[in-house]
């Protein structure tokens, strides 16, 4: 296993896979939509329009964007934990529905009954939105089990963080996933902090790509701030799972700029560390620079995209602000299905 990890690490450091201008542009749009949407969500939280817990994806945009670009939209299933807004936006769920769920309105994706951590779409094969750390890993393997049982050729992509990677059920799931060769790709979004606890303080070994070693699940560490690297690794991992070889682990080295949730002052890390990531590694700035330096887009073109995205986000925010709360009768619906 050590040999594999070394080989793949080397691969992520050289021979950087290239994106076409179209791919860069697509990634730019998707990532910018997440960034602007999350900034707006943070602002609306500040205004009291969004309540409770709200976990922003700012900084980690390249992960879900690269992986979703490498997956088959509408066919492959995705499931994640509570930091889930970005996943839904990239998978094509309506930003208005996402924002209205954050504000707890009837037009929200879950009719206002789920909230930030609980949104789903059968149509887009997005299974949440799960609030219990690590639960989505076994659920995600179950989606893969169903794919194999039905023989529909789909792959399940299960995201979890460096914190969840220490939960027991993750390893129970790794065991079954490999034992039964389930078509699942485990994405460990390592943003270095499980809430306020750094990986060094929480994990006996911090190379999470090796966490499947005892189950003979191949793993790779990937630069999760470079959408091209993410895409390339995801493409190979998804192909591995789809071809019947079983699970694959991708550890995405990423970073969240904001706190764990809205009320986290993030005093467990230095300002310099955050600034360094924002200034030197930012996923969106990397793509933007390529688009401009390559002569594919002008500053003006990108400004137009920015304005389009701001319009989408403003529309979502307006809808989420003005949409009514769910009717009181909704209190008693959707508990069980009458046979």
């Amino acid at each position, binding site marked *: 296993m050590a040999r594999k990890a070394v080989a793949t690490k080397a691969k992520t450091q050289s021979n950087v896979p290239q994106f076409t201008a179209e791919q860069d542009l697509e990634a730019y749009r998707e990532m910018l939509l997440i*960034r*602007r949407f999350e*900034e707006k969500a*943070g*602002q609306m*939280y*500040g*205004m*009291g*329009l969004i*309540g409770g817990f709200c976990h922003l994806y700012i900084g980690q945009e390249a992960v879900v964007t690269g992986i979703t670009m490498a997956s088959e939209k509408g066919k492959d*299933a995705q499931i994640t934990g509570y930091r889930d807004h970005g996943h839904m936006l990239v998978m094509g769920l309506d930003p208005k529905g996402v924002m209205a769920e954050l504000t707890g309105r009837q037009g929200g*994706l*879950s009719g206002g*009954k*789920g909230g930030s951590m609980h*949104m*789903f779409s*059968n149509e887009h094969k997005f*299974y*949440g*939105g*799960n*609030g*219990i750390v690590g*639960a989505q890993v*076994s*659920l995600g*393997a*179950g*989606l*893969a*089990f*169903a*794919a194999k*049982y*039905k023989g529909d050729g789909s792959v399940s992509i299960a995201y979890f963080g460096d914190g969840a990677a220490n939960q*027991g*059920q993750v390893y*129970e*799931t790794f*065991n*079954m996933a490999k034992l039964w060769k389930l078509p699942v790709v485990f994405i460990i979004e390592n943003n270095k902090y499980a809430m306020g606890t750094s990986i060094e303080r929480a994990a006996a070994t911090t190379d999470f790509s090796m966490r499947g070693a005892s189950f003979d699940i191949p793993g790779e560490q990937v630069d999760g701030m470079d959408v091209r690297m993410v895409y390339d690794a995801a493409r190979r991992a998804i192909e591995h799972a789809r071809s019947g070889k079983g699970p694959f682990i991708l550890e995405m080295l990423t970073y969240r*700029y*904001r706190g764990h949730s*809205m*009320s986290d*002052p993030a005093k467990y890390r230095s300002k310099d560390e955050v600034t360094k990531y*924002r200034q030197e590694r930012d996923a969106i700035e990397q793509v933007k620079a390529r688009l401009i330096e390559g002569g594919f887009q002008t500053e003006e073109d990108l400004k137009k995209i920015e304005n389009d995205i701001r319009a989408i986000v403003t529309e979502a925010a307006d809808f989420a*602000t003005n949409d009514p*709360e769910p009717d*009181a*009768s909704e*209190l*008693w619906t*959707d*508990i*069980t*299905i009458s*046979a």
Partner: protein
Amino acid sequence: MPQILMPALSPTMEEGKLSKWLVKVGDSVKSGDVLAEIETDKATMEVESVDEGVVKELLVEEGTEGVKVNTPIALVLAEGETAAAAPAAKTAPEPAEAPVVTAEKAAEATPSAAAVPAAPKFEAQSDPDLPEGVEMVEMTVRQALNEAMAEELRRDKDVFVMGEEVAEYQGAYKITQNLLQEFGPERIIDTPITEHGFAGLAVGAAFAGLKPIVEFMTWNFAMQAIDQIINSAAKQLYMSGGQVKAPMVFRGPNGAAARVGAQHSQDYSAWYSHVPGLTVIAPYSAADAKGLLKAAIRSPNPVVFLENEILYGSTGLVPKVDDFLLPIGKARIARKGADVTIVSFSMGMRYATQATEKLVAAGVDVELIDLRTLRPLDSDTVIESVKKTGRLVTVEEGWPQGGIGAEISARVMEQAFDYLDAPVMRVTGKDVPMPYAANLEKLALPNVDEVIAAVNAVTYRS
């Protein structure tokens, strides 16, 4: 939107101190730039800009305490925007127009929890009429459960069985005997000893449209998996606004077996019956075991199906019809009577039935009700009976506090208080972990004499 508002930075924050400005008038800011530091009751937090523009004015001086959430604290003008576009209000920062309208709207919207609408009433269906002269076949509860699964596996390819020793071993208690031979290893699946993991995996499979039957070797081990049963399966439909279903059955033996000690002898009836979103079934007879397990497998909801190891070998008559289904949520009146109502379920029915035989012989006309389903609970049948008899005894193996008997007692008190001629009495397992020693174990469980004593007490017979 040119105004920067004092943000709420926690679920409970109402005001805070603007401790420091990190920008000054004339600075250009863009999305993500830190504008100020704010002290809440819990921590010092940073306020980031969402908009791009030039800082035109700082409306609240740094060091100001008690700045209310949503007060404008700065003016940032976008490119091309003029100061006239927004009114500046340096002194006494009144909430400015545009954003505050939305905040007020939100505030208006929040306390709309006026009257709580009434819960919909559950209407139980009656058992189906059996064709006249139908053949009754004697079989064990074990065979009844096995037949129920085999028939449903034949009927629906999306149904599969998963659990420890369910396939090659033929079931730790032989409930899944011969299923592997008929349905093959793709549908009858041996799992590693990994309850939390396989329960979650099965819930995920149910989300994706399959209909898993998850066997727990005993419900004691399902405590490893209870998070997935409750947080993932039971709540999914509600959290998703009705979109994502978890049609599945969790089943296995529940309650005390014999001499297996505290960790292997626990009744989870009350635990699961507490949870909205779950259906909870605990049959006693072979016929109910078959008809209700088939109904559970077809249910679009997650069902907790509580069996009992001691009852597996007991026999009963099961009607021989093509598709024997019983309604979930309907109690069965095992004996009609007029003097006293005894309510029980699962293994409790054995004590209750034997006590009833003795009491009837002694001239007490007992009405005996087998709940069969614990959620939804068939209150109507119990209430109607109590209105007739005026006296109620509940029997269960579980602990007394927060038990099924406690729940029934409360409902009867609420709905039939004036009909009671005596306080409701509960016969339960004793409030202790299950002891191993044979004599102590016997003392810890309910027994026939305790049921008789309770009936004598509520009927004021000595």
